[in-house]
């Protein structure tokens, strides 16, 4: 058992956890944040993606004890109250989910992708999105609408940036 202190969705969390506990299990079983899903045991499906210190991480590949002091955001922490994150709204608008199981991971990967490309000042086109999604499997949607949703969310987030740039 090791004592870990971390911030999850903006709230401080302190727990004793066995050294072998994966972040995915810690979130699901200890914190009961069950929006983070586990779809495989070889780190290849991406259903478990969360953000650690602002970066996308497959939570099934990280040990909870290694995250002392970290800031973790899960799918439950993405919306601002009732207001959906633009990525969440775009998934709804474009019918980018069916069974919803891959969806939390897709949204977390999508947000991370948009953030990285924005920070680098690069465009996020459909082709790039498809390659960026290499770590996320969806069995239901055939990806068409997921790619469209991420494209659209990227545009919405860029659009929201625009007034800020204009004010500079």
């Amino acid at each position, binding site marked *: 058992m090791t004592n870990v202190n971390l911030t999850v969705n903006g709230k401080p969390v302190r727990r004793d956890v066995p050294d*072998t506990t994966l972040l995915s299990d810690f979130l699901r079983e200890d914190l009961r944040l069950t929006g983070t899903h586990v779809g495989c045991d070889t780190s290849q499906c991406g259903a478990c993606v969360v953000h650690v210190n602002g970066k996308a991480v497959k939570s099934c590949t990280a040990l909870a004890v290694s995250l002392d002091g970290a800031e973790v955001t899960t799918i439950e922490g993405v919306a601002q109250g009732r207001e959906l994150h633009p990525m969440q709204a775009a998934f709804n608008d474009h019918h980018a989910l069916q069974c919803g*199981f891959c969806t939390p991971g897709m949204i977390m990967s999508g947000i991370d992708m948009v953030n990285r490309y924005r920070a680098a000042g690069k465009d996020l086109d459909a082709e790039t999105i498809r390659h960026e999604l290499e770590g996320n499997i969806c069995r239901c949607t055939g*990806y068409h609408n997921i790619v469209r949703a991420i494209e659209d969310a990227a545009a919405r987030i860029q659009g929201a940036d625009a007034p800020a740039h204009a004010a500079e």
Partner: protein
Amino acid sequence: MTEGIGARVKRTEDRRFITGKGKYTDDIRMENQAYAAFVRSPHAHAKVTGIDRSAAEAMEGVVAVLDGHQLTGDGIGNIICGWAITSKDGSAMNMGAWSALATDRVRYVGDAVAVVIADTAAQARLAAEAVEVEYEELPAVTNAEKALAEGAPQLHDNAPGNLIYDWEIGEEAATDEALAGAAHVTELPIVNNRVSPNAMEPRSAVAIYDEADEHYTLYTTSQNPHVARLVLSAFYNVAPEHKLRVVAPDVGGGFGSKIYIYPEEITCLWASMKTGRSVKWTSTRSEAFMTDAHGRDHVSKARIGFDTEGKIVGLKVDTIANFGAYMSLFSSAVPTYLYATLLSGQYDIQNIHCNVRAVYTNTVPVDAYRGAGRPEACYLVERLMETAAREMGADPAELRRKNFITEFPHQTPVIMNYDSGDFHGNLDKAMAAADVAGFDERRKEAAARGKLRGLGYSCYIEACGIAPSAAVGSLGAGVGLWESAEVRVNPVGTIEVLTGSHSHGQGHETTFAQVVADRFGVPLNSVSIVHGDTDKVQFGMGTYGSRSGAVGLSAISRAMDKVEAKVKKIAAHTLEAAEDDIVIEGGEVKVAGTDRKMAWHEVGLAAYTGHNLPPDMEPGLKEGAFYDPVNFTFPAGAYICEVEVDPDTGVTEIVQFTAADDFGTIINPMIVEGQVHGGVAQGIGQALLENVVYDDAGQLLTGSYMDYAMPRAWDTPFYTLEHNTTVCPNNPLGLKGCGEAGAIGAPPAVINAITDAIGDNDLQMPATPQKVWRMIQATQTPIAAE
């Protein structure tokens, strides 16, 4: 109407999924939860000679270690196949015994022999490894053709030669004669590769035994909770139906794999009674590859004959279907009534004969996977048509057109009676959208870049809306395939619809509500859909075979008829008008041509106060219906795939995929498009990437996402979709079904495109780069050694 039938309404169920608030089975945790871990056979075939539980029992947190002798000793019944198929010699199929926990013999890698129940999942897993099982290895066989051979290892004593049945359909002599007289015969060996369904949510079960009431509850990843309850109760003797509640909450995809009642659910229920604890089990992905029912795995030889005009004169097919180690719930129906009955395709063929042998092997049981039999039929027919056209120097589209069925109803020689369709129209739309006319130019341009460009067609037909109960009963089905529904109008006018269909991604909460909103003119958000709980819904046969629309919604429609009739009676009585003059429009119940009316909710309130109802009318406003379809429905379409193959690497890129579908009435085009996207992606997966592989000893080589290639975003294109609607004449809403079309129609289109590109027809799925590269090497004229 912006929310009714035909509207692109955004899904109302999305919110909980995009915010992480979905409620899947593994998200449920009971007080005092215990966890199950299974001890599984590492051998494909072995005798179990002993189980030593002592080490495991002594481990921390272990509640119980239970084995198959205890399970059968408590009277838990064997797992059954629910569709009896009779061999052509009149004998019954040979069903081998399948116990949820094996007692004396294991028949595939992953076959469960014992279960450990412990306080935590980690403790259960550790202890399961400490259970020592003694095995005496037996020779194994994984390939169906080899399993039929003389001297092959035998799996079940009551299935000599590993043969489950030897079944036929159609007239053999007439077909042979027609083929003998044909001007051209095309012959192809066709392998339909074994695939793993891979719903992204692994299977899971939470079983709860309430000792005081002797009552069980099972939360599980099921496409059909009532069928699960029926089978658990009637055949597995877990508990009588009134003492067993089955709930399928949010379910993360099924594709057929969650129809069946697996050993794990049975064992968890029984173990919860044995231990007095709620028992939970969630599959790992590795276990899923090892134990979820696989799909397809057919090996066929097919011959199709044409006259001098290019008209088909006969089709003869011989198929061997690999069933794995045991007969899963619907396995027997898949290569017979869901496969051979569709071999006429979209074509007018007078003579068809098909022989099917179903075979045991030391592999995971095989059952229905998205399309179930129809993809195998479509793949075979459409590979034959394309190949025949090339052999005869005919245009593949024209050869198809020459043979299309154009008049309906059309009786095929293999049972099916097609009720409607417009096959030329589908193909016209697909060809226009795919710009077939411009293909030669594109091919030249690709060649200039060093790429081989090809175009392939697939004109699929399938049978959905399963199925008329009396008809399937006469063919051996153990259940009726109707659907049930209940429509409750509350005193405030809001509506709850209880349906026996189950949504595990299909969006019923939205589409079903659209149909109700459309009918009564009430806002969509005043309608809620209740499904997936045997305590709430009266009964249901569940969701598979694209039946939720054609059968499930028809039941809702019938229940709405009854509600409407009662509403009109109440309104006529209250408004002092004739019933025939009452119309329901825009949320109001009116006397036609007058300003006399009641608001919808006023009728609801009147029904429940009972203060002023017509004499003899019971209070309340709630009606149920059981709907039994009169025929299958026949979605059909034309798919065109265009690929570019890199001759240096053998890599295929799908550059364009066009689908023109006829699904009958469309309730929500957005959701229908999503179904096609997903189905086509699965078809592309099967054609290019996916393949379950066992080695000769029966070890599963494709046991994780490292070895089993799932289609990812970069493997799939943006799809171009068209609709060409002919309304189904046989159900109230004119629906045909759309859930499986993509997975049925796509594989032959992809393979026909690749074979067109590389100029060699002898390609089997999956068309991996290595396979394609070798074929290109073999067909290219060898350059003379310098």
